């Protein structure tokens, strides 16, 4: 079909419609098929085949009323054909084919039982895509693919990674899940907490990949943040009684509320204290605060995401930096550090201490981290130390630290900012 074809535009519009339908329905279709075939890789292939069939047939037949049912039915028919072909070799598959046929007779509707089944299947799909047996990067790619409805090409672009690399990650992940016979289930009991934390880690990794690009000169890739937020919001409805899920959603909502303010129109990063707070998205802040309330209503225990969300909320509530409740932030960081001891949290606590109790108290904490091997190449350590030294009037030392931080960061825009601060140490009168 050529670009000059009068039907070309209509065809393009229909393809976009089918893509949109896929975005809405794919996760539920794949989840349902995984339950039936007990193989997430096969389920996804079948769903993809159904998508191809839709692209071929809908231009002639028009878009069906119940698109999810159409996609599922088409995929199931293919599953039956496939199993029939293999039935001679394996009797089990024949049973499965009969089971599938029987299920196909049942008319899909949206009553509450089916609704619950769909939710259960979706949650199982979340857990299998984020299974700890897979490398983190594969979990992220698979989650975006199976639950976010993204194409391999879209994932590759979002992660600025060549498409074949992402495709390979997904293929390998699916193979691993099949080879290791990872069950399609929601983990129970003590296993649940660990598995849930793997899910949250994946969603937050996707968010951070978009929020603070680690390489290159773009500071944000907002589409990826939106994908992560959407996944988080979906998860919050699937597991409404898990405080940490609401904590993660709250954290992402509040961080995303600063999107407009944290980069200038020319792409320079703007630090939290210098941000124009009127540009903060009040809707997202409100949503974040509501998510924190939801978590608190469940019980009084706090996990790492909820702590971080509450710290972010302290900033979100302050209309000016000077109104920030730094004492509360120090308390939250102290409790967080007790829960999950980490040099990075300790560094953040030091920043809060400097705001609540002055730079000298903070410098003592930061100096204690100097020999921390895990922070040896972490640009924020010299960056924070530089800032404290600067505030204490020790400008020559501050300059050296800013330069060290600039040499360590991989983000070119952040490097420029740090070098500018180093230069400002030079021009300022030292030791007032």
């Amino acid at each position, binding site marked *: 079909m050529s670009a000059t074809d009068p039907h070309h535009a209509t065809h393009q519009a229909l393809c976009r419609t089918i893509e*949109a*339908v896929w975005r809405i329905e794919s996760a539920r279709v794949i989840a349902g098929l995984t339950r039936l075939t007990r193989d997430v890789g096969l389920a996804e292939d079948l769903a993809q085949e159904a998508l191809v069939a839709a692209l071929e047939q809908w231009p002639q037949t028009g878009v069906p009323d119940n698109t999810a049912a159409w996609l599922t039915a088409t995929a199931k028919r293919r599953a039956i054909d496939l199993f029939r072909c293999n039935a001679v070799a394996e009797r089990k598959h024949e049973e499965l084919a009969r089971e599938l046929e029987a299920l196909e007779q049942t008319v899909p509707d949206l009553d509450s039982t089916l609704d619950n089944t769909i939710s259960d299947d979706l949650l199982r799909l979340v857990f299998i895509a984020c299974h700890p047996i897979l490398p983190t990067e594969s979990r992220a790619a698979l989650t975006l693919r199976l639950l976010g409805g993204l194409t391999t090409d879209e994932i590759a672009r979002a992660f*600025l990674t060549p498409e074949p690399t992402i495709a390979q990650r997904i293929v390998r992940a699916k193979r691993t899940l099949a080879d290791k016979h990872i069950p399609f289930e929601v983990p129970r009991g003590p296993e649940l907490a660990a598995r849930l934390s793997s899910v949250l880690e994946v969603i937050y990794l996707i968010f951070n990949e978009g929020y603070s690009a680690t*390489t*290159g000169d773009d500071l944000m890739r*907002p589409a990826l943040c*939106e994908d992560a937020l*959407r996944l988080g919001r979906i998860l919050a*409805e699937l597991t409404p009684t898990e405080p940490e899920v609401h904590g993660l959603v709250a954290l992402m909502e509040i961080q995303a509320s600063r999107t407009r303010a944290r980069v200038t*129109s020319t792409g320079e990063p703007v630090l939290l204290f210098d941000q124009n707070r009127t540009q903060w998205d009040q809707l997202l802040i409100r949503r974040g605060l509501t998510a924190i309330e939801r978590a608190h209503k469940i019980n009084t225990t706090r996990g790492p995401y909820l702590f971080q969300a509450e710290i972010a909320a302290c900033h979100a509530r302050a209309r000016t930096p000077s109104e920030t409740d730094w004492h509360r932030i120090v308390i939250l960081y102290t409790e967080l550090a007790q829960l999950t001891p980490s040099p990075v949290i300790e560094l953040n606590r030091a920043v809060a201490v400097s705001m609540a109790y002055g730079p000298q108290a903070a410098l003592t904490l930061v100096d204690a981290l100097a020999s921390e091997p895990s922070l040896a190449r972490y640009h924020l350590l010299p960056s924070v130390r530089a800032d404290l030294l600067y505030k204490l009037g020790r400008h020559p030392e501050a300059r050296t630290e800013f330069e060290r931080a600039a040499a360590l960061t991989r983000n070119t825009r952040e490097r420029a900012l740090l070098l500018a601060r180093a230069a400002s140490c030079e021009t300022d009168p030292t030791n007032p």
Partner: protein
Amino acid sequence: MRFMVIVKATPESEKEGALPDPQLLLEMGKYNEELIKAGVLLAMDGLHPSSKGARIKFSGKSRIVIDGPFTEAKELVAGFWLWQVKSLEEAIEWVKRAPRCNAGDYEIEIRQVFEMEDFAPVLSEEQIQHKVRLRAELPNQTANK
């Protein structure tokens, strides 16, 4: 991207004290729940008839207040949703799934919300490809994240 999905008024929805049919409300509740479960719904509200509202006309230096109700129901807004979706087409698909708000004929209008990308520079196709090439040359760099 975000879209404001605007439900236009009808003579029915403009009637004073008019409350929607409980059955329609129930269906709308289910629909909104679907939107929440899909991570799409950011905010929503329904509006009173225009008889409870006002218009302020800006003309030169004067500000002239005109009390409601207003005629031309189909030009009025009866309610709105704010959605986060991937494309206009996705928003259209979601709107097609919406139950009726009331018995009369009415329209739903979809409008895209301005985002940061509309003001700040975004990556061009060329820049994206350049970055992909750069990244490909640096193996395993996200492994230590």
